């Protein structure tokens, strides 16, 4: 994760309208935000849309940024909220992957990396949003319990509980599909 000091300095430069600062901030967070949004949404187009909205909202509300939180937590929180909003709007639901692998391949068949990636995404999409979000933040965004707690604004105890349940469900789903 990025250092707090650098992020805060960037925020101040962004507030003063310095384009270079905006470019740096987008450069820092575009990829991780897109990656997280993709894993929550399961669709590259939706992930790109959400990533754009995240930055536009972040810049629009820079004055409301509370420096007691880490910048990445603030931006990730916007990303998670926007991703869930996008899911609720039901746009382009899950066109990128399908259930063909499990239907046609036996468990003994070696999965290609692409098949495996698709199966994992299917497993993620089978999870409830709460569970999917903690899995994504922990395993695809490399967040600690404390960071997930700050992003989702829930107690660490709840993070642990959700993560354990989510893993158990994910394990069962992948086992049922012959992946894990």
């Amino acid at each position, binding site marked *: 994760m990025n250092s707090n000091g650098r992020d805060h300095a960037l925020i101040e430069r962004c507030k003063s309208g310095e384009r270079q600062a905006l470019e740096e901030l987008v450069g820092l967070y575009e990829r991780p935000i897109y990656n997280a949004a993709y894993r929550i949404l399961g669709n*590259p187009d939706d*992930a790109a849309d959400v990533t754009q909205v995240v*930055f*536009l909202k972040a810049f629009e509300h820079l004055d409301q940024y509370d420096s007691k939180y880490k910048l990445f937590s603030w931006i990730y929180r916007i990303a998670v909220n926007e991703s869930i909003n996008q899911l609720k709007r039901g746009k382009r639901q899950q066109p990128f992957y399908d259930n063909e692998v499990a239907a046609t391949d036996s468990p003994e068949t070696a999965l290609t990396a692409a098949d495996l990636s698709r199966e*994992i995404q299917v497993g993620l999409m089978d999870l409830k949003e709460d569970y999917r979000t903690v899995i994504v933040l922990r*395993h695809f965004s490399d967040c600690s*319990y404390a960071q997930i707690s700050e992003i989702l604004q829930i107690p660490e105890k709840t993070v642990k509980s959700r993560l354990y349940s989510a893993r158990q469900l*994910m394990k069962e789903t992948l086992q049922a599909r012959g992946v894990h």
Partner: protein
Amino acid sequence: MLEERTLHLINADIDGELTADEREDLDVILESSSEARAMRAELLRLSNLLDSQPEQLPPPDLAKQILNKLAPPPRSSNFSLSGLFASFQPATAGLAFAAGLLMTVGFYELSPSGQSSSETASMVGTMVANQTGSPNLLKNDVLLKGEGFSGTVSLRSNDGVYILNFDLDSEEMTKIEVGLDRTGLSFGGFAETRSDEDKVFETVTMSGGTLRVVNQGRQQFAVFLRVNSPEQAIDAGLITIDFEHDGDRLYKGVPES
């Protein structure tokens, strides 16, 4: 059946979040329970599987698109459109408008309320046009040059059809407004005749007698103007033009005659 606490310890271990005391407790449990060891192995395998997934990369132009949606800072530049339309007169009928160049273009017939390029992106057709052979009604093609921006604008006509040709190359977003009020002309169509792959064609709209094009990158396009009615006097010298590049207004007004 494993105890709830054992499961929590195993998960925390996998996540690297065990305290020293918890580590000791888990080691004791793992030593005595094959079920706990099996569960730990399964969850560790799942965790490694998830962690090993490749990062999904955003489209290469996403960052650029995001930045383009934010207000760009002003940038100094200068050029003159002096002379644009200076010798504008309708050409005589029969000039070789369709003299030979066949081009595949995106042709956009705009509604009065305007529409975005994304809505018209699939409207690609074939038309015959001749830019090189039709008369140039300007004394010279007007050269536009500024920091991060260059191009030419020319106005041609044939048999009552007026065409504004734009050939632009801009690093940043360019806004162009063409005002047709009181000219006796109205918007007849828009044709994109060339564009680079990385261009960003933001919007093409027509409303209130003003055509607005927001674009970026290397591209050529033609704006077709039609005569409102044969009885109405045409005064193309009243066409107004407004160029803004990267937030900096480069020109606005009726071009000098």
